[in-house]
């Protein structure tokens, strides 16, 4: 399980964020002592740090600068300041991403996943049973049967795969699609899922995607 370290001084946000991350399959850690933050980070060895800019004792930007001298751990800056200059400054100090409060939790999770993937720290290889998956070309293959997925179907399948055996809500799928600049509506999502279903069926996986009424879908 990926370790994510939360550096945030607001208790409510800190705890809610921790439970959000736990629920999404990450192992979350919290720092309570900001004076000694760098050493704690180095000790915990997280896969990713969520760093608030306004923390006591040491400014988040300063902390990031100091941290970069010792470690290349991916850092996402989180702040309620939303000036362009703050973002540019943070990125120049070596942040991997920058997100402003209040953020949409689903988007935060997508950003975390993206950073983990980009920094190569994500060794979850996408596997589904005996299926041969070619993300780039959008092709799934099993034995001699090859099926081409559209971009939307691939995004949905990819999301379901990374959350295998967990319930995925329609909103999560929608957020991921929109995040990939596919601004589809509810009907289109339903159509895309049923097409994906029948394509999976054609390679021999019938009922791979189950519907949980009122909640979402699950790939099992």
């Amino acid at each position: 399980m990926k370790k994510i370290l939360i550096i945030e001084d607001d208790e409510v946000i800190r705890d809610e964020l921790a439970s959000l991350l736990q629920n999404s399959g990450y192992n979350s850690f919290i720092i309570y002592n900001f004076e000694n933050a760098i050493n704690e980070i180095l000790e915990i060895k997280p896969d990713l740090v969520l760093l608030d800019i306004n923390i006591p004792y040491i400014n988040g930007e300063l902390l990031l600068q100091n941290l970069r001298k010792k470690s290349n751990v991916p850092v996402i800056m989180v702040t309620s300041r939303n000036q362009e200059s703050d973002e540019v400054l943070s990125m120049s100090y070596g942040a991997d991403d920058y997100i402003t409060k209040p953020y949409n939790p689903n988007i935060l999770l997508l950003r975390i996943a993206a950073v983990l993937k980009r920094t190569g720290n994500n060794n979850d290889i996408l596997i589904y049973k005996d299926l041969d998956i070619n993300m780039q070309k959008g092709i799934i293959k099993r034995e001699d049967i090859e099926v081409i997925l559209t971009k939307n179907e691939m995004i949905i399948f990819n999301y379901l795969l990374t959350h295998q055996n967990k319930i995925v809500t329609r909103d999560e799928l929608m957020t991921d699609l929109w995040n990939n600049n596919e601004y589809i509506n509810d009907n289109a999502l339903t159509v895309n899922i049923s097409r994906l279903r029948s394509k999976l069926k054609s390679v021999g996986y019938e009922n791979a995607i189950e519907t949980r009424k009122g909640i979402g879908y699950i790939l099992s």
Partner: protein
Amino acid sequence: MSLKKFLNDKLYLIIIFLVIYIVLLLMFLAFKIDKSLILVTSVILFVFIIVILSIEYFRRKDFYTNLLSNIEKLDKAYLVLETINKPNFYDGEILCQALYEVNKSMMEFINSIESQMNDFKEYIEMWIHEVKIPIASLVLMTHNNSSILDKKYEEQIKKLENYVEQVLYYARSENAEKDYLINEVSLNKIISNVALKNKDDLLENKIDLIVLNVEYKIYTDSKWLEFIINQIINNSIKYKRKIRNSYVKIDTHDYEDKIILTIEDNGIGIQPSDIRKVFDKTFTGKNGRIMTKSTGMGLFIAKNLCQKLGHKIEIESTENKYTKVSIIISKNRYYEVLK
């Protein structure tokens, strides 16, 4: 300065002079003084009064004509004292001194108001950052408890967030010296952020978002432009028509020296009599009054921010058909050379 009015002002002097002259003349006649002497004395006296009046007139004429014309020419009339020569007559000096004192006290007053405004703006900015923390907590809490909480909680929080954002950008747009940073940014990313922000509202209202060709790099402040586009899309959602295929269409047109970003909807549109006023402060118009509570600030702030960024914003609409907002972003050769 008109001669007629000047003479009118000096009428008392002329009358006294004439009275004295007549008395003198009568005395001369009574003493039977030689006529040629009377003539010479009269000429001297008249030359004397004319010279005095002319000197008085011309000294003032130059000064006042200059003063008035400079006041007219300056866009900041209160700076006029710096542009005129010191007068060489006493009442002019008093006037200048008085103007100087009045100016000074006005400046001090304005400065104190300005610093009050700056303090207030700083406080607002700080307050907004503070208030965002509980909002962020609420967002996380509703998300973590989404199985037991209704979606309406999230909607209300989102509204709260939008209003707070509006205050922030209002404070910035009214009073921004260096709050923005022009950078090369991806238009696609800006659109994507705005789209994600409005995803729930768009889906809820069954409005299709159609994004065409937006793969451009532009020079702008991405946060500000995001806010501007967000205001426009908020309006499209607010003023949609109750029809089946509502949409918001975002497209660009690429010209040699500019990129025009258009955001078009097929909503209720804007009345012809209202359209020229939609960018005015607190203007709500027919739609704002009938449809929903409107503050009339969104487009006003958007236009203000556009001006600061050097973009142009235009709107066209036909009632019950469509509304189309265009943002004109110039391509800056300067930045291209810099690269």
